[in-house]
């Protein structure tokens, strides 16, 4: 029987920095195996919401659940994979692709344990799924921006997560890298049944694959399917009334 429990749910989440109300009664959920996108104009509270959803920030009010429990109470943390913006990785890090991806497996294998055969296979599979097998011994610093981003996705995939959360992963990445990025996410959902929450204002690469859209500007402005969003006159395409322009008007 399928588990109907949402992978992620926010209930009336509010957050303020001092007097600045950043999030106001935000509620939505991402179902198991669902491919969702959270978008909104710059300064809409996306990054803050992401940190609240992952348990890195406590909301001022409301609550968040990952697989039905508060983030702090989730014991199997490997079930959540997180892909940060690539700029957060130190530019002079001497680590190889293999070393970075292996570090993503630690949560599942036990950070104090040595790798077993099953861990090595999972790491190899994660590298293969982002098509970086030939570059596994190369240093992260020798790769292009798009390749580095795929390394971070492989790192998150190495723990075989049931929910993958990605923060602005395709900003400034070329078209070919975006296509490979999209293939990696579709592989994760189709082959492993994982839910994906993509936080971005560039959704063109995955427009045809999304099940669910959430548009945020301090509060939730839209929560539904891409088809329902298109019904409002906004599409994820590239013509004059596309999403980036609409978001710009909102901002």
């Amino acid at each position, binding site marked *: 029987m399928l588990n109907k429990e949402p992978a992620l749910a926010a209930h009336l989440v509010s957050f303020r920095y001092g007097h600045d109300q950043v999030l106001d009664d935000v509620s939505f959920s991402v179902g198991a195996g669902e491919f969702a996108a959270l978008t909104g104009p710059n300064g809409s509270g996306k990054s803050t919401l992401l*940190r609240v959803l*992952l*348990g*890195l920030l406590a909301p001022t009010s409301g609550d968040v659940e990952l697989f039905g429990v508060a983030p702090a109470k989730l014991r*199997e*943390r*490997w079930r*959540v*994979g*997180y*892909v*940060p913006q690539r700029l*957060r*990785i*130190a530019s*002079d*890090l*001497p*680590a*190889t692709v293999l*070393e*970075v991806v*292996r*570090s*993503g497996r*630690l*949560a599942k294998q036990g*950070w*104090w344990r040595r790798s077993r055969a099953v861990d090595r296979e999972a790491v190899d599979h994660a590298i293969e799924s982002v098509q970086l097998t030939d570059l596994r*011994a190369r*240093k992260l610093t020798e790769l292009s921006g798009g390749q580095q981003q795929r390394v971070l996705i492989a*790192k*998150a995939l190495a*723990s075989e997560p049931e929910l993958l959360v990605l923060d602005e992963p395709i900003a400034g990445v070329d078209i070919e890298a975006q296509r490979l990025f999209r293939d990696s996410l579709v592989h994760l959902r189709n082959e492993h049944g994982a839910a994906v929450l993509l936080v971005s204002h560039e959704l063109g690469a995955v427009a045809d694959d999304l099940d669910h859209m959430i548009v945020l500007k301090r509060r939730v402005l839209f929560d539904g399917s891409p088809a329902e969003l298109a019904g409002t006159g906004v599409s994820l395409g590239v013509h004059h009334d596309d999403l980036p322009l609409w978001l710009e008007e909102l901002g």
Partner: protein
Amino acid sequence: MGGLPGMPWDFPWPFDRTYMQLALLAGIVVGATAPLIGVFIVQKGMSLVGDGLGHVAVAGIGAALLFGTSPTWTAMAFAIVAALVIEWLRARGSATGDLALALVFYGGIAAGVVLASRSGTNTNLQPYLFGSILTATANDVWTVLALGAVIIVVIAFIGRALLAVVLDEDAARVSGIPAGVLNTVLAVLTAVTVVAAMRIVGVLLVAALMVLPVATSRLLAPSFRATLFGAVAVGIASAVLGLVAARQWALAAGGAIVLVAAVLFAVAAVVSGLRRAGAQAGSLLSGPH
């Protein structure tokens, strides 16, 4: 004068004297452990934290001279408390952290000088400021060996997880790796390393032994693992060659060790530059015609 009691063989020159053999043992341990910690603190952008903790350790030495307690363990207590305060400030992302660090560090060395002057033995700070490996006693060396063993065992246990934390602390936290605990352990180990290295290169030069071998290894190593082992090898080589130079030319051993580390960095920088130039020339020759 012979070698260490119980040694089954004679050491060749320049390690044919007991004091040189003790210095060699201590130098190898510090040469290995300082870069082992350094590889993580450099990656966290905290290369000079060892220098700051060294300043605070001076306050511990001053207090030990005044109150008649053990300089090593008193300095250790001061350095660990300072390391925990620094880690707390770093984790809070405090805007005033930089200023607070300056206050802690310079307050530390000033307190050390003042406390030592009150004890009436001001000159006794000298061996701790600049190192005095050639006068280290067997007890000093056993302490260094024990502290070094603790550092190596702990890093062997948490090293992989520490790499995940320095790669991306938020991602590590989200995945359930106890980043806060690991950062605290690293801070304490840094303090322990500073105190272990205190008698060898002195608190004013300890940061160099934590950072220079890492910088050298990073220029040539193809991976993080190779950087780590390479840094340890450079640290040990610096200690051994520095001691040889100190014996040959009657130099201050601590300074000689750090100078050797600086020369090895310069050599690695030249090799790395030549290698890069060679690779560029190769790609130009094999490029489109």
